[in-house]
């Protein structure tokens, strides 16, 4: 399978890259080009998915050069699901952005967003840690530029902070890459997994890379940059950042821990679990204290990211699957929430929770989207969040580590509290009623489609779980 003349793996990277260039060169056509390309990228991801499901995990050597020298693209169930969720969220956000961005901002949004998409697709397909670094850096820069797109003091400050954190994170990661390359003479993950042994250099590399990635994933207490950045960005950008971008660095961490650092790191795994637990609780409490809707959603992301780290100390097949399931449903739900919040902001001109002023009646589709996405975040049925939580609880109880159960429970209750706080206020009348602007129907439906996808994940879990097994990313055997 090494020497194919044409590969869908390359296609899903090239397409958004070409789109980015075209959108940049033809700003007048940017919106339509972007939309058409979004459909094309999604289509090619579907073809790739079809291929992977029929043939199993695929490895493709770009230009015919093999692993130690050239660049390998590798896709298994884990990468495929990431590509697919990016495609789904990306497509819907693209449709939403058609209506959201007016002429001026659209010129900048589309090339940057396509670049972001390129970076993510390349990241999920990379088979070596250096290539991962390159894509990670590209992703960070595109994301920072997108945050700055909102303009204004808040957004620029948040973007600057995001930029510094992002660079610091990549730098730490790069140092780790250098250490590993120096020790084992390769950057290919599969080769590293064979050669790696327990040496101080590996430990140092592990620490550096993990810390770098934690910065970018915004795990407590390294989350400080996330709420302002995600809350001040334009709604579609917030959706992309919270739903997808933070997951990309988590994906790298997951890969590294599964393949390269998999041996005796229980103490470090427990530490990640503790930080995750702290994130769940701290993010939840902070979300509860917020008075602005977008800040609340951003802190909810901090909290939800915490859940993903609870799987490290559990480290069973069920736990990894639960973590990935939570990640996917959170991506859909969180994107839906930010899009709905964007609609509410657009409708009333503000996002103060106490003054939501009957949006339940006046903007029912968006509030439904928010509520359904919220149900998934709380982990109540029917939603992907419930399935993920069920599996995580099961895994925690089976490993006998019942204290994680308490964290999961309290996190869920906190989520219910802050979500229903919003929903409750959306039924009541505010003291001063605001003049409302109509919201384009396409924006309302976009949010709802993503929320419904999160709900459907609660009913049709067998299929994603079957895809997860392709190439056995969690199953020890590897490709």
């Amino acid at each position, binding site marked *: 399978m090494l020497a194919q003349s044409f590969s869908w793996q390359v296609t899903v990277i090239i397409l958004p890259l070409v789109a980015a260039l075209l959108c940049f060169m033809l700003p007048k056509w940017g919106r339509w080009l972007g939309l058409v390309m979004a459909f094309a990228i999604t289509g090619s991801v579907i073809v790739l998915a079809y291929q992977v499901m029929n043939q199993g995990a695929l490895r493709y050597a770009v230009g015919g050069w093999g692993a130690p020298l050239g660049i390998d693209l590798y896709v298994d169930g884990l990468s495929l699901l990431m590509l697919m969720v990016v495609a789904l969220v990306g497509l819907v956000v693209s449709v939403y952005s058609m209506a959201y961005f007016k002429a001026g901002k659209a010129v900048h949004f589309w090339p940057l967003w396509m670049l972001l998409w390129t970076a993510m697709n390349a990241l999920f397909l990379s088979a070596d840690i250096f290539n991962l670094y390159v894509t990670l850096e590209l992703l960070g820069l595109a994301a920072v530029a997108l945050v700055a797109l909102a303009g204004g003091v808040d957004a620029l400050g948040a973007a600057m902070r995001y930029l510094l954190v992002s660079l610091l994170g990549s730098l730490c990661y790069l140092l780790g890459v250098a250490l590993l390359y120096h020790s084992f003479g390769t950057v290919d993950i599969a080769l590293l997994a064979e050669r790696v042994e327990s040496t101080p250099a590996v430990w140092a590399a592990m620490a550096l890379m993990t810390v770098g990635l934690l910065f970018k994933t915004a795990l407590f207490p390294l989350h400080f940059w996330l709420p302002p950045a995600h809350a001040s960005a334009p709604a579609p950008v917030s959706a992309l950042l919270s739903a997808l971008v933070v997951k990309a660095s988590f994906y790298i961490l997951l890969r590294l821990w599964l393949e390269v650092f998999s041996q005796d790191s229980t103490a470090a795994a427990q530490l990640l679990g503790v930080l995750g637990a702290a994130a769940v609780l701290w993010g939840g409490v902070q979300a509860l204290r917020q008075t602005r809707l977008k800040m609340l959603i951003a802190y909810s992301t901090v909290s939800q990211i915490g859940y993903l780290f609870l799987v490290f100390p559990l480290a069973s097949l069920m736990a990894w699957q639960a973590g990935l399931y939570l990640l996917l449903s959170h991506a859909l739900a969180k994107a839906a929430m930010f899009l709905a919040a964007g609609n509410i902001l657009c409708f009333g001109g503000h996002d103060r929770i106490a003054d939501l002023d009957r949006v339940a*009646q006046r903007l029912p589709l968006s509030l439904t989207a928010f509520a359904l996405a919220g149900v998934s975040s709380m982990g109540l049925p029917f939603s992907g969040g419930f399935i993920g939580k069920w599996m995580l*609880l099961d895994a925690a109880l089976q490993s006998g580590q019942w204290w994680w159960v308490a964290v999961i429970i309290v996190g869920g209750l906190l989520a219910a509290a802050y979500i229903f706080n919003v929903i*409750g*206020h959306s039924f009541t*009348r505010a003291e001063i009623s605001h003049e409302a602007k109509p919201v384009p129907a396409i924006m309302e439906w976009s949010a709802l489609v993503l929320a419904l996808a999160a709900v459907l994940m609660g009913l049709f879990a067998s299929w994603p779980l079957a895809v997860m097994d392709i190439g056995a990313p969690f199953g020890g055997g590897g490709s």
Partner: protein
Amino acid sequence: MYAINWDVWLPLCILASSLLPGLLIFFLPEERVVMRTLLNLGGASLKLVLVGILIWGVFNGHHYEFRFSLLPGLDLVLRADALSLLFVALSAVLWLITTVYAIGYLEGSPHRSRFFGFFSLCVTATVGVALAGNLMTFLLFFEMLTLVTYPLIVHRGTQEARRAGRIYLAYTVAGGTSLLVGTVWLYGLAGSLEFTSQGFVADLVTGHRVELVIIFVLLIAGVGVKAALLPLHGWLPQAMVAAAPVSALLHAVAVVKAGAFGIVRVVYDVYGIDFAVSLGVALPLAILAAVTILYGSVRALFQDDLKRRLAFSTVSQVSYIVLGTAIVGPVAAVGGLVHLVHQGVMKITLFFCAGNLAETLGVHKISEMDGVGRRMPWTMAAFTIGAFGMIGAPPMAGFISKWYLGLGALEAGQGWVVPVLVGSSLLNAAYFLPVLYRAWFKVPAASWPAERSFGRVETSLALLLPPLITAFLSLLLGLLASAPFSPLQWVRFIITLEYVP
């Protein structure tokens, strides 16, 4: 060519008969009254017909089961067994009546599409709870019920309604969480969650007695919130801010009943009554139920707000079901389980009447009810029948329940239950008879707080007929308790399955 296998699809159709109309109603513009009414009543009638077919089928030896894989090893199961038929039939009948009432009650009020949409979803969840064939499915629909009831409670959009909704959620979401943990834990131990008569835990788990007791407490606490068991009852009186049809739904058809039904399921079909006794958890549950019965009645005495008095009465009455379940003995079990039906029919009557008083005369408090029987004789007649039923006077339905409970307790050697029943009946009389006295014998005040005229009848027909029907039903249930196909006979059949030697 495949013929549609109705044994598989009928349970799903029963679910869909309220789900689909509900979803459609959400998208109806406010002014499409006829279409909405058509969908509402059409769905409710269709469900009743389908439930009728289901019962007929079960009698003729059909085995209805719908299965859908949720997770490897865990299915969503909808199954018609003897116990689920009881609850599904109750909710289908009462839903139709409540829908008629709600259409009359909410005439001309805002946001009706939203209201009726969630109303239908609420019944969908209840039917899901009733038909659930394993604990996982039960949990799914139980939680769904929590979520879809919330918009009904905050429907009016006042700050007060929002607070009530918050309290409701604080209790029910916490309860749901407890249920979730218990369920996952039990699944880890037993590897299966399928309901089986006489329980599956005893067969599948060896040892782990301490864990099983903790899981039992978690499960009962989870469902007990909705059943308003003693320390967990606080939400119910608060939720009274909601409109009368919602109260009727909460108290008689859906939420409280789902909780009580859940306790029956956990005790009978998860643990099995014999195993529950050997774990030593049945007696504490019975004592808790007894305490709740007395506590609810005492609190009801001191309420001046009519709906709040009825709410505390519900707290008390629902625990009869729990008591009957937890006393070990077939006769008491019959009394408890049949009260699931009897309490539903009687309490819905009372809430309909309270709603009529509020809607027609603006009367909310008992102190305002002087002479109301002269102004609204039919409504108060229905109320009187319901109240006597609650007290347990023969030949009302409530008498049958209490009779079996008392007999069963003596048979099981638990004589302490009898004073509880007598005390509760006296308290019931103490808080219902003064109301009746005021209504019938006192001289009415010069004017009512907010009177609306409906011409020659005392109130609109859509409001008057439902309580009359349910009052008549509760008389009938008592008088014809020994007739074939009565709930009592059906419950006896269920109990023989559970107590088979």
